[in-house]
């Protein structure tokens, strides 16, 4: 599948999709990995996945509620314990324990709790304390804005180029189907910088500044989102980088010591979240789609797109919890509002469906998937053809040559080498 430049431009126009997809029919073009399936088979697959969903919903109950409450308790307990250790201890071991506990708490709060509560996975409990409309997470990005870009945009348009802004987050080239731009040579640098500051990257991304410049988001909306972010960011910074280290001074510790602890904890969480999330859609074997392809998409095709566009991570039960069960990215994308603790039992069923219909089910251990992701990001830093000539031309010290090269690139013509 090749995406032409024209296609990228036409995708800017927003097509209105209804909330409920038809069960029968066919999209304009099925992705190659699913091209062997008939319309009836796709419909059958959709019904099978709906049945898996119904089964879990019927089972959902007190043990699930107890699970999320326990997880919240553990995260809060670790946070209090970690801060006390960080503020009061004077030893290296105490510092490491405090920092580690805060980092672990943030990982749990952010991924297994925050991400999933904000998906409405626990709304069925009708508990206003654990509800998608009330939850605010320990992350710089305000929850409401994130719900829009994530739940609405990303989960609706999973891996659809030009629609799903999560494909590269507007700053990275992560697919061959994204045309190369001169800025992409910085791919590895940008990604390496993004990892430890991931929460700030997400916060800035949720402002959708690119949509404002494209005229698809009003300046007023942007301003109100920016105000919400400022307010949230000030409180997050005040808690972690001012109040906590300052509390250490009261017991004779230095400000720097506490600050180093909270900065480290946030960076650990950020690097971890970045790694897990990048492994969800960017490893080898994951497909991207065009808006034209999914025109007329049925419920079954939607499920297929979620399965082909996502990748899992294999690991232990604890590993799954620490990834917020995003290690079950495929299950999460098919059923974003089922409680995360249930994905582990959904996974074998979904895998069996993939096997039955001869569809790929991408999974692997974290180091392998992470390596593939990074390798791809590094490789895609360079253009697909005439790599060095193109890079040399667009970064040439000669202004005229540079301009000619960029114009040729934009027009999709060969780069003038002379």
């Amino acid at each position, binding site marked *: 599948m090749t995406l032409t430049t024209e296609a990228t431009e036409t995708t800017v126009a927003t097509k209105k999709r209804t909330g409920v997809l038809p069960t029968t029919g066919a999209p304009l073009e099925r992705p190659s990995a699913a091209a062997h399936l008939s319309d009836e088979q796709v419909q059958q697959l959709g019904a099978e996945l709906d049945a898996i969903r119904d089964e879990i919903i019927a089972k959902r109950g*007190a043990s699930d509620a107890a699970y999320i409450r326990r997880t919240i308790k553990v995260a809060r307990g670790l946070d209090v314990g970690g801060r006390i250790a960080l503020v009061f201890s004077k030893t290296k071991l105490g510092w490491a324990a405090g920092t580690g506990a805060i980092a672990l708490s943030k990982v749990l709060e952010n991924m297994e709790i925050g991400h999933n509560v904000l998906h409405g996975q626990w709304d069925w409990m009708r508990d206003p304390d654990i509800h998608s409309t009330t939850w605010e997470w320990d992350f710089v990005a305000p929850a409401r804005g994130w719900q829009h870009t994530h739940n*609405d945009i990303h989960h609706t348009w999973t891996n659809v180029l030009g629609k799903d802004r999560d494909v590269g987050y507007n700053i990275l080239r992560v697919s061959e189907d994204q045309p190369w731009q001169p800025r992409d040579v910085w791919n590895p640098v940008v990604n390496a910088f993004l990892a430890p500051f991931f929460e700030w990257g997400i916060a800035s991304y949720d402002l959708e500044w690119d949509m404002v410049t494209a005229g698809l988001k009003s300046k007023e909306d942007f301003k109100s989102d920016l105000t919400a972010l400022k307010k949230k960011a000030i409180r997050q910074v005040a808690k972690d980088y001012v109040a906590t280290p300052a509390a250490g001074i009261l017991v004779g510790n230095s400000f720097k010591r506490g600050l180093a602890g909270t900065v480290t904890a946030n960076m650990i969480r950020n690097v971890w979240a970045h790694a897990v999330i990048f492994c969800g859609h960017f490893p080898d074997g994951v497909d991207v789609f065009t808006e034209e392809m999914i025109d007329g998409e049925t419920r079954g095709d939607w499920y297929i797109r979620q399965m082909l566009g996502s990748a899992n991570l294999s690991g232990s039960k604890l590993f799954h919890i620490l990834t917020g069960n995003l290690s079950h990215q495929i299950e999460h994308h098919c059923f974003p509002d089922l409680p995360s603790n249930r994905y582990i039992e959904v996974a074998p069923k979904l895998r069996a469906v993939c096997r039955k219909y001869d569809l790929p089910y991408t999974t692997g251990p974290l180091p392998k998937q992470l390596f593939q992701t990074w390798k791809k990001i590094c490789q895609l830093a360079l253009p697909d053809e005439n790599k060095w000539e193109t890079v040399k031309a667009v970064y040439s010290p000669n202004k005229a040559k540079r301009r000619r090269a960029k114009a040729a690139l934009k027009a999709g013509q060969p780069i003038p080498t002379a």
Partner: protein
Amino acid sequence: MGLKSAALRAASVFTHPAHPHDFLALINPLSSARQLRGVVTAVRPETPQSTTIAFRPGDGWSPHDAGQWARIGVEIDGVRQWRSYSLSAPAGGDPEITVTACGRVSAHLAHETRVGDIFFLAPPQGDFLLPTGPRPLLMLTGGSGITPVMSMVRTLLPKRADADVVLIHSAHDRESSLFGDELAELAARHDGFHVVHRYTAEDGRIDFSTVRDIDALCPDWRSRKTYVCGPSAMLDDAEKLWVDANLPGSLTVERFETAKLTQVSGNGGTVIFEKSDREVEADASTPLLEVGEEAGVLMPSGCRMGICRTCLTPLLSGQVRDLRTGEINDTEGDLIQTCISAAAGNCHLDI
């Protein structure tokens, strides 16, 4: 309070974006910033089907007046369910409810509640209250309708030696009759308190179509301020009798059941929950509250029978039908009670 709120504000710097209460809840389960809670302190069986549950509410509860009710939330299979119950304990004291198992929630409360369980609460409300001055009283109760009256009796008798109260309580049989021993004891101790038991299995129901039964049970009923609480048929009949006797002002009714129309025409429609961004097909007989809850919308709810008005939600557009009266409401911006309104065509709610 000033010191406490200042301390909480200072603590919130460290707990943001959570509230300090969320952390206090780790050690005190009653601590919550969003939801009033209570802990069950005693569970006493009353009859095979009824249980009295005493609970200690957390901060935010206001002491109840005799005859008031409160919304009680309880988790069943992980899902929070809310119902309203009259508080049967005397005014001002630790609240108690007496629950008879007749539905899923009340059966759960009556049979599964244990000391230490947590209740979710809303402060007491209701205007089924004792008169301000001393008056001879007649209490007409049926089944669990005795619970608010029990609170009144328990409050009034120890306070006023001159109390003059006749209580006529109907129950199916002696075994299912609530508070039998305590009523007998109170009647023995207080000269001005008379209890008449009516066991409908043996004596049949009180006939309110004529004054014959009531004349026999309480000859001076016309001179008494009367309180009635029980099954809706009993309330309807009593109301009619008092109106016919030209005494409507002396009857105070507490209604906990609403007769809903069973035959509803129309096919319902699509309901859009604006703020929750959900869209659901609803039939013409399911209350919008249930439709919303099924769709995962956080719907405000209370009595679920159209009396407490907790569930008021603005209707942005479309039509809804009042399930009690069959009345159609299509006034844009009108606050509708979702618990007794169903879709009468497409409708769009601001929630």
